[in-house]
């Protein structure tokens, strides 16, 4: 579903947010990676909460966020 908007997910254990547009390059997940493409046994890098206990959210960012990594 390439036309589907990119989504954001929030960890219900600690509040860590995952944004499909940004991915988690520092954890080997490139930008644009859909939530469904992340392995089911993946867990929150901050608190270890399993993927199944994240909630999809439609919340915008605060001013100046996200602070994107600089292009190489």
């Amino acid at each position: 579903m390439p036309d589907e908007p990119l989504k954001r997910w929030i960890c219900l254990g600690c509040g860590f947010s995952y944004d499909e547009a940004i991915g988690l390059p520092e954890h080997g997940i490139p930008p644009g990676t859909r939530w469904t493409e992340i392995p089911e046994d993946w867990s929150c890098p901050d608190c270890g909460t399993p993927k199944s206990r994240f909630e999809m959210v439609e919340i915008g960012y605060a001013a100046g966020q996200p602070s994107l990594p600089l292009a190489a």
Partner: protein
Amino acid sequence: MSQSFTLRAAERGHEKILSTGPTASYVGGHPDAFVTRWSSFNFHDYQSGRPGFGKIRVFGDETFNHPGCSYSMHRHHNFIISAFVLSGTLTHLNTLGDNDELKAGDFYAFSAGSGGLHEELNLKAEPMKAIYLWMLPNQLLLPPSFQMGHFDRVAGMNRITPLLGDQAGAIPVPQDARVSRLVSDEPNTFVYRPRSPAHGVYAFVLEGEMRCDGTLLGSRDSKGVWAADEIVCKTGAAETDVLFVETVL
């Protein structure tokens, strides 16, 4: 036509979290230390029951037992975490530089925003009892913030006092939400008016008894009401203590 759910005290999720074994890195303290947590809502599928209400995700009625009992220093993002101390002494530490001691009536709101760590600690022999409330924020990765307040039981007697939200005297939080407290020591009728019928109100009886929107609630019973212009609450002669959490749905 208003809608509602009623949650009786014993219907809540219950956990006893030990400071030994698999949860030792999570709960700190003397080997006898443990946290008990009665949860009105649940962390998604962590427990059975309601997944939340409006922007509320956690409403924990918690006791830290034995000196040193704590949630060890750990990281958060985004959630607005608040604690309302009911008895005992809570030591709260966070990476914004706050190191505070809270007693009965004290409360705080910690908006974790773009990231912050905190520790919740009971250093005393007396158990520390508090309500922990987590809400989703209205924006992601906000600058972290922390503020403390105090509910004055005498000045607040027989009226609904705003604690968190946009009303005068309350601590602002980055969400369309309000927390208020009512302590009553006489038979009375209090009318809670939510900002709009699109807001829900979660009324939790800390102690005593109250008829809320037609339902008699005892200690630790609660009721969520929405699509209502007003919520009529009737108290009796015995002292009654209630928290109201209003949230956009």
